């Protein structure tokens, strides 16, 4: 593609108003030196032959003509950015989970994943919450922070938390009568080890602060007289 404005080429015809140039067509002819180009070429404008077009391969007739006209969806090239985090959420913040199995538990925030979800851990030994993803909306961020500098979080991403692809079960008559074999989902050992390494560092920084461990092992609940809109978290 030819460069759009080759090294500072600007229009020689300044705008008086948008759409109206200062100089007329004849003036511009002279300004651009088109007379000199013509003179050089013997009174006519130089002609450039069109570039030879690449030989078109004869298109093969398609194998299949669809019966109905199917509408093609429009192209969408938008890329998602991870959700914007609230200012109160920084790595090492203690969260209060508001929904789900671990409702009311106080957990430590590790990092935000590319999907926008927040990676969080109990630590597991302290309150039974494993490495888990959590949505920002279901979380209260307290102002208590834990030192998280010694923890290596490089290997955790959304892929780590994907469900295992289920093996296809063959349907057979016998299986309807037999009781379905319960395959208990056991957590693979390497995931358990990941949990342990992450927690080892965290527990050291937690035990450095007085009462923080008991704080994390207790659940949060709203008591009589507590007004959430007046509470400072």
């Amino acid at each position, binding site marked *: 593609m030819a460069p759009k404005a080759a090294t500072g080429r600007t229009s020689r015809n300044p705008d008086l108003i948008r759409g109206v140039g200062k100089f007329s067509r004849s003036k511009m002819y002279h300004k651009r030196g088109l007379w000199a180009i013509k003179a050089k070429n013997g009174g006519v404008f130089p002609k450039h032959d069109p570039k030879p077009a690449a030989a078109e391969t004869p298109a093969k007739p398609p194998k299949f003509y669809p019966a109905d006209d199917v509408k093609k969806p429009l192209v969408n090239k938008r890329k998602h950015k991870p959700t914007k985090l609230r200012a109160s959420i920084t790595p090492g913040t*203690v969260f209060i989970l508001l929904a789900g199995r671990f409702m009311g538990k106080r957990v430590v925030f590790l990092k935000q994943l590319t999907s926008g979800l927040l990676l969080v851990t109990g630590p597991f030994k302290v309150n039974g919450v494993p490495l888990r993803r959590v949505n920002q909306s279901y979380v209260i961020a307290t102002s*208590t922070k834990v030192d998280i500098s010694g923890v290596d979080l490089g290997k955790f991403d959304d892929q780590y938390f994907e469900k295992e692809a289920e093996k296809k079960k063959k349907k057979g008559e016998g299986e309807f009568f037999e009781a379905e074999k319960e395959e208990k989902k056991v957590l693979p050992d390497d995931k358990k080890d990941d949990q342990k390494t992450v927690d080892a560092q965290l527990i050291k920084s937690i035990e450095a602060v007085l009462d923080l461990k*008991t704080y994390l092992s207790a659940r949060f609940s709203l008591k009589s007289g507590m007004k959430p809109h007046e*509470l400072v978290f």
Partner: protein
Amino acid sequence: MPFKRYVEIGRVALVNYGKEYGRLVVIVDVLDQNRALVDAPDMVRGQMNFKRLSLTDIKIDIPRVPKKKTLIDAMEKADVKNKWESSSWGRKLIVQKKRASLNDFDRFKLMLAKIKKGGLVRQELAKLKKENAA
């Protein structure tokens, strides 16, 4: 039951409504039946309805509508800040503010401390009961 706290020039009052809620001000002039001119070291002097003021026991010695510098010197001389913070009303307000600003972790630590204190008190009580019974 006569009145003990009078509206007078130099009376320190607490603002109990409006933009200046919770501020200690000095009554510097009386404008009419309902309003006073009120001033504080870090505030622009302005008028306020008496209904917005709660009078305190503290009074300082100032001329009517003093200059800011005179007002500040008089407040230092009378030690208004310390008198207020050591009074029971002032102390209560300080405690209220502290309680409102407690973090979730602070509230948890407070709960642990209360339980501990209660336990100690109960221990002592049990000891005394035993001594009494014996």
